[in-house]
């Protein structure tokens, strides 16, 4: 079995997609996961310190 096949075998994709359904909102689990990752990345980008950045106090 090739390396790609072994990685693919970790997640069984041989089934219909899973969906989250709440009132009129319907979203696939895959899309919900991507949206969550985007929001998380956005928050981390705002809060994580940038390498080599000096604080405002140091700049003064």
């Amino acid at each position: 079995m090739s390396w790609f096949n072994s990685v693919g075998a970790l997640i069984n994709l041989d089934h219909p997609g899973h969906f989250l359904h709440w009132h009129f909102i319907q979203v696939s689990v895959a899309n919900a996961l991507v949206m969550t990752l985007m929001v998380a990345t956005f928050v981390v980008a705002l809060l994580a310190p940038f390498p080599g950045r000096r604080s405002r106090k140091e700049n003064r």
Partner: protein
Amino acid sequence: MTTEIDRQWTTRLRRRAEGKLPPEKLLPDTQPSYVSSWIYVFGVTTLAALMVVIATGCVLAIFGPQWWHTSSFGHFVNSLHLWSVEIFFFAMVIHLWGKFFMASWRGGRTLTWMTGVVTFLTSIATAFTGYASQSNFDSQWITTQAKDGINSTGAGAIFNVLNLGQMLMWHIVLLPLAAVVLTALHVLMVRVKGVVPPFADEKVEAAR
């Protein structure tokens, strides 16, 4: 005294371009200190992903659908094309959120914001025609679902999502051309006006 050479459109255009965008502004050596934040990296991430999208798209165009459906390397390049598009949209939307909350249209940057908005919409259309051009069951499903929506807008008469040839031409010629030209304009506008400062540094920029 104005000479004939001064009145030429080439001379006038060159002088205007040099005035608006001198080399040190086009390719600057330094950036303001506020740019050293992770929220500023998503624009260039989008640009890098776009380059991979274009490069892999060119390879797919050279060898064609039979190759990308049947050979291992074709599958690999096809996957690279898909995943670079995923990264492209992922980074572009975070870039959009960041710029929205910075109100990045401030300081005469309306055109920068608007070119970004139009590029985003063009990219969505490019991605949609890409899904319609896969030539597999997925594209059949997507196009048969989309046709009713498109027809309800009245655009179906000239934009037929069930016409694979038409969707492929839109996907590999017209829309990428528009997306690349708009992206180039957007980047040039950023270079002309500079990166938008945070609200706290706005007065510093205005004083310059």
